[in-house]
């Protein structure tokens, strides 16, 4: 009798305790990370899907409704979402996720940002003066943000603080091992020269020792132009050499294919986030896939 009772209790308890927190991530990688740390205690959703350019989405009514209900919002920040997030926060009428409340977490403020220009001269393109916001392409950054996510979850949901800390410890251990595996496999990529569609990959390049020699966009945020592409063609059909032309899945492949066909430099699509390719089903496979794709393109 007692056993049955406990058995039922154990079946019911997790159900009642489940998904007490609603986490809204601006990008899928932070939703994935919140799941790693929060497990069954959190219900996550992402404002953008893996095949969307997080710079340019609409401040849709459905997202305003999500902000209203969220307990924690996790975004890359550094002005990546400047075109829509401020509007969502303003219309969402939810003070617990409006900065500087602890319910708002800006991932890029927990890592060492690259390309911090402080410049706001837009003739250089749509620059992010506080640095490049695409911090998720370096797994060391993910580790740093994981700490912050666990800390915030513990703060917003103090009852389960210990649960989050344990999951963080577990995640960190598996993640650190994974990083050493990736770095070992990616060793041959060191020093390779890369042409990027947009400056989405500076953290990946920094991590793997790739060298970005050009971008398909003439300046950040301005789509590739015929003039700029022909300049690139002159450069790279001549003496100059590059190993990859990389783009994110949501960036039009016409420009990279055009240049690839004429120069023989392989064009590679890399997932920019979890779910960005069929293989990148979670945070671990996201980096697996990036390295797989680069290694196989290298031939």
């Amino acid at each position, binding site marked *: 009798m007692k056993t049955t009772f406990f058995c039922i209790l154990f079946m019911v308890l997790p159900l009642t305790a489940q998904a007490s927190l609603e986490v809204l991530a601006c990008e899928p990688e932070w939703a994935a990370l919140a799941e790693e740390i929060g497990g069954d205690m959190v219900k996550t959703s992402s404002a953008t899907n893996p095949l969307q350019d997080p710079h340019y989405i609409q*401040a849709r*009514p459905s997202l305003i*409704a999500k902000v209203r209900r969220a307990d924690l919002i996790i975004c890359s920040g550094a002005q990546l979402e400047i075109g829509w997030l401020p509007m969502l926060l303003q219309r969402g*009428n939810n003070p617990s996720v409006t900065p500087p409340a602890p319910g708002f977490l800006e991932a890029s403020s927990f890592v*060492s*940002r690259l390309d911090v220009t402080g410049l706001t001269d837009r003739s250089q393109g749509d620059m992010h003066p506080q640095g490049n916001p695409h911090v998720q392409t370096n797994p*060391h950054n993910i580790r740093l943000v994981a700490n912050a996510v666990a800390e915030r979850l513990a703060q917003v949901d103090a009852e389960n603080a210990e649960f989050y800390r344990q999951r963080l410890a577990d995640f960190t251990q598996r993640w650190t091992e994974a990083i050493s595996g990736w770095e070992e496999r990616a060793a041959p990529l060191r020093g390779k020269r890369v042409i990027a569609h947009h400056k989405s990959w500076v953290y990946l390049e920094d991590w793997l020792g790739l060298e970005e020699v050009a971008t398909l966009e003439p300046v950040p945020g301005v789509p590739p132009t015929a003039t700029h592409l022909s300049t690139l063609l002159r450069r790279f059909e001549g003496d100059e050499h590059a190993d990859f032309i990389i783009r994110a899945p*949501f960036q039009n492949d016409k420009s990279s294919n055009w240049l690839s066909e004429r120069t023989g430099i392989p064009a590679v699509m890399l997932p920019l986030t979890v779910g960005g390719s069929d293989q990148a089903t979670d945070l671990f496979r996201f980096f697996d896939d990036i390295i797989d794709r680069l290694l196989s393109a290298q031939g």
Partner: protein
Amino acid sequence: MRTILLCFLSLYLLAGAIPALAEPESEIDLLRAELKQMRADYEARIADLERRLDTAEQTAAVPQTTTVQAPGTATATADAYQPAPSIGQPAMTGGGAFNPDIGVILQGMAWSYDHDPEEYQIPGFPLSGHAELAPEGLSLGEAEINISANVDDKFTAWLTVPIHVHEGDTEVEIEEAWIETLALPAGLSLRMGRFMSNIGYLNSKHPHSWDFADQALPYQAFLGTHYLDDGLQLRWLAPTDTYLELGGELLRGDHYLGGGEGDSGVGAYSLTARTGGDVGFDHSWQAGLSYLHVDAENRPLGGHAHADEHEEDHDGDEDHEGDEGHEDGPLMFGGDTGLWIADFVWKWAPNGNWKQRNFVFQAEYLLRNEDGFYTMPDADVLPWDVNQSGWYVQAVYQPFPRWRFGMRYDRLSSDNPGAAFADSILMPGSDDPQRYSFMTDWSNSEFSRLRLQYTLDKTSHEDDNQWGLQYIFSIGAHGAHSF
């Protein structure tokens, strides 16, 4: 480096040398000794600095990636990858280098008409507010200055000041100046000050975010392009999965549709309900229903009204009243105005990637009832109870980055107000006023836009071919656009 130091040193010596001239020999020797000592010190420091510079240069020459160590030492690497000083400094959320954020939107245009735009009238729909046509030829349009910032953790503030040239005079307005709460519980937010009313879809859009160079016809005819006023706005967002927002406003009723002399300080109110959602990743929509009620007393209307006497009463009042120099007395309305607006917007972008390709369908229907009295130019007072309606439907397609193509059809219709108004501007023509507009625009980035528009205007007795060129440039901070 060394030259600069020596230069400073000699300046220092020169300055010192003037009093030194008067000093006895022995002190000069002393100074010489001191100088020698200083020189030795400086040279030692310079040598040290140079050494350090060399080291720094060598470190910098090695790519930054060296902070991540070679594969196989990953455990150490994870610890070596330490956060830099930027850590913990929020890089968000729209807050730029300055407080407050300042943005300027510059607009300019060139229009060509078959008929004189100064004489533009829509029979049955006297125009007010900013509803007159843009001047023929090259003109500046308006420069819009937006200043915004969080006041503290509980309030945010916004100021919009358009500057434009109207009949040779430079006019500065306060178009918006409001404070909004950030921390009200239960999904509430309260806005106070002057703002563009939340009614309809287009009403609260700034001109720079319009998809056409001019405002849709029903808004021009019924709201003087848009209704803005001083007051309070309360919005409540339901805690539901589906977006549902209810809003209400209490307003002064001083600006067109309101206006006039006798308002008691609360001359208007509005109610708005809005919902919306997604259909897959590609589609999203929003629909709204609004009602605005305005109690007007001697509201001047149309090109025959004269602004000046009212401008004196209401400092900061708009330049609604249009042309000056007409002989007639003012045409004035007193009574109740009720305006219903139903709005619907459908947006499509493959997988929500707005920048590549998108399509927006948008339609609104406005129904206005005015019940009261008109004071005619000859001082007759005539009863008036008339329904007028207007609608527009538009579609804008961006087939590839930068270029958009749009079409709009807008139309008005009106009850016959009765034979007493037969010779006045309040009598509608035999055909409903309507327009066909086509536009294409090119945006180099989100901050620049050039637009060409053609409108076949069938609103007056004679058709008008209207060609417009427009530019819209945004510098400084640029707030996120609403859906």
